[in-house]
């Protein structure tokens, strides 16, 4: 299967924007991140949009950082890449629209973290695992990412299993552990995302600026660290 040059597809379903990650494993590198920011900008330019859904294609939601590539990078460049990744995390965490992650397949490493920081996370039950595989790849988790995970996962057991043991979770297990908030059959994934939006968010949406401020207030320390305002390691 030839790798498409198109990284992201952006479409609008009335007041819902959907960003689909289009490449085979959706592995993260500089180009991915650049184009992701562009996709987010496109979404925000549409004033009618009140919620955002992200999803992948085929067997993968997102398989994390492209380690084959990053293993070739000298330290400084590797650091720069991770700084950029932290900025992506910060942007999604404080996005001025409600965000839903529709996990259609494997969500590994940075891809798993990426899903975790949406406002609502739905995973389908037939395909793929959620896993923070950094420990298996001998990748050190930076302090900003650890802070992020502590903020998002219940302390104690979940943190232990996900980060330290690098355990992989089926959808059902991820639901029990509080990593995802809803599970469903694959064919129901997008309908469920839309239903959640319709049933749980106010009809007129939120004021974008204020929603962003609220997220920034709630995650102040994490966001400051992700954005490099405090030490990362």
């Amino acid at each position, binding site marked *: 299967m030839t790798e498409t040059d198109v990284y992201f597809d952006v479409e609008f379903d009335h007041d819902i924007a959907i960003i689909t990650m289009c490449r085979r494993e959706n592995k993260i590198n500089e180009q991915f991140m650049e184009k992701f920011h562009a996709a987010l900008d496109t979404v925000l330019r549409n004033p009618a949009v009140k919620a955002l859904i992200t999803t992948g294609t085929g067997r993968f939601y997102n398989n994390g950082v492209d380690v084959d590539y990053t293993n070739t990078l000298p330290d400084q460049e590797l650091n720069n890449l991770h700084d950029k990744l932290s900025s992506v995390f910060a942007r999604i965490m404080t996005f001025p629209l*409600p965000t839903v992650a529709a996990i259609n397949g494997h969500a590994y490493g940075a891809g798993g973290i990426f899903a975790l920081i949406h*406002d609502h996370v739905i995973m389908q039950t037939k395909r793929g695992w959620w896993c923070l595989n950094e420990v298996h790849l001998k990748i050190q988790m930076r302090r900003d990412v650890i802070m992020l995970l502590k*903020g*998002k*996962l*219940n302390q104690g057991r979940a943190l232990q299993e996900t980060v330290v043991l690098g355990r992989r979770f089926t959808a059902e297990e991820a639901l029990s552990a*509080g990593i995802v*908030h809803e599970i469903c059959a694959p064919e129901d994934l997008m309908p469920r995302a839309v239903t959640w939006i319709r049933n*749980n*968010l*106010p009809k007129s949406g*939120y*004021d974008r*600026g*204020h*929603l962003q*401020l*609220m*997220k920034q*207030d*709630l995650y*102040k320390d994490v966001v400051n660290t992700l954005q490099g305002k405090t030490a990362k390691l």
Partner: protein
Amino acid sequence: MQVKGDGDFKVTFENDVAIITMCKGENKINIEFIEQMCAALDKVLENPAVKTVVTTGQGRFYSNGFDLKWIAELGLESTLNFMRKYSQMLAKILTFPLTTVAAVNVSWDIYEAKLVALLAIDIKHPRSNPGRAISEGHAYAGAALISLAHDHIIMQTDRGWWCMNEVHLNLKIPYDLLGLLKEKLSSGQTVHEVVVLGKRYTAKEALRCGIVHEICAPTDLMPTVFSWINNNLPKAGYDREHLQTMKEDLYKDTVVALKAKL
């Protein structure tokens, strides 16, 4: 909706349990509320036999939130002073040297409560607009936080919702109050939904999400309180000083923030 109460906070004792009953009608939070609550708590401590304190409301209301009308009359300095005292009261309850139980005798009525003006007066948020601060809305966030500062929360299931509605009203939740929420709510996702999405919860949902610890029918409220006390606390109680130290240690960052009121 005007509800008349006896006008005071009453302190009664049933063996080793002290009950503070808020009898000021809707028990709206203003400086008098704070002063009476703190005085009642001090009175409870003066009784060496007491091992647990229960707070509850008289009649229909635990507390219907901040006293909008009163706050609207305050200048900036007085408002900030009020908010400081409010945070300090929360810190007092949070680290109280006795076990604390909130017996929430009515749910916050989403359609009747009025809005918090003072939260909008925060210069860190240029987007907040004091001009529109005084409008119909919901103020029960102030009362919700008071109950959250207790060790155990029992809520009756009759009607209404639990909700921190600031995000719907473009209001900021101050940093120290966010700290209390994060400290007391059981999961990051619950905190997220409460704060960012301003989600509303029935008593049953609040129980499921760990916002309250027990629910019961309105008529069962006080019996349920006593049942919990008898079944869960050591008969000899706790050493007061050590209980306070334990709470201060556990909630250290939150307490520091509440007392400093940054």
